[in-house]
């Protein structure tokens, strides 16, 4: 394999990995900060219902 291709692939992996990690952490933090309290009863009721739709 051409070493130039290997290095460029490695750079791509590193950069995309960093971007993904960064945005993943960002989204997780946002989800925590903007968490909406859902009523647990809603889920329970939905579970009991037939759920055809």
């Amino acid at each position: 394999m051409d070493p130039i291709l290997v290095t460029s692939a490695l750079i791509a992996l590193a950069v995309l990995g960093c971007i993904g990690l960064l945005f993943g952490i960002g989204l997780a933090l946002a989800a925590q900060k903007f968490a909406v309290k859902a009523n647990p009863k809603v889920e329970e009721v939905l579970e009991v219902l037939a759920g055809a739709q």
Partner: protein
Amino acid sequence: MKKVQRQSVFLACFLLAGLFLLTGCDSEHRFVKRTAFKGTNQIVITFAGPVDEPWAKKLDHYTVYEKSDPDILLGLAGVALSQDKATVTLTFRETLNQEQPHVLAVKEIMSQGTSQGTALLTVKKAYLGYLLSVLLGAMIIKNFVFTKYLGLCVFFGTSQKKSTAVGMGVTFTLVMVVSAMMSWFMYQFVLKPFRLDFLQIVVFIGLVSLSVQAVDTILRKVNPALFKAFGVYLVLVIANCIILAVPLILANSEYNALESLMLAVGAGGGFLIALFLMSSVRERLEVANVPPTYRGLPIAFITAGLFALAFMGFSGMSLF
């Protein structure tokens, strides 16, 4: 009430300042008021006061070149002075490439016997007009739905009722602006420096889903009413190809941040217009006497084709 008023005054001041920043003040020299292109091969210089006729008529006093090519001086064919002696019109032998900014050097301006010094001026097309032409171009002339046939599945899926259509259009525009700006930033400052242009599609798809997810999470908390109104459309935006086409166009045509913003707003607005027009017609078709074979989607396809024909009328138009 008072607080709202103060806020709106602040907003107005801010917008006005932004407008001035955009248009620029053009005060490159204290004696030159304005420079502008006129026709295909003329430049008009407006001075703050009358200039001397013998000075103004001499061709040697003006040097003009394109900003990117300082070595190539443009040939002057003639100079005309207006009645009040404050406006000079330079005529060139060849047509000027008005997309390029031109540099105009005016030597030793003489006004009523006194010298006003040499002025080095930049002549360029009004930038605000150019931005507006990008916006209107994406919205109407090169409408993504009717002239490029993109985003058709969402277009036919959500254009049955006017309320649905407008909801989808507004949601789409919002996500489009967010994701296009992020993609532009990502392309210019990450992908290009690392020479990873070949990964642009992968990155842009990721950014679109990221912005949809972010808008979903934040909106759910910040404005539940709006979130409920957006409802299912927010997720549908991911399945739209216009939202991927815009970052690719931005990457190809090397737009700057403002132009990218205009293209994104234009694409969103164009989709909104297309959806609204289509839903109006389809609501009307509900009560029309359509032959049974054509009911439903077939007649919608025919309508979309007619709209596309109508939008072809705008093709090749250039604004400003």
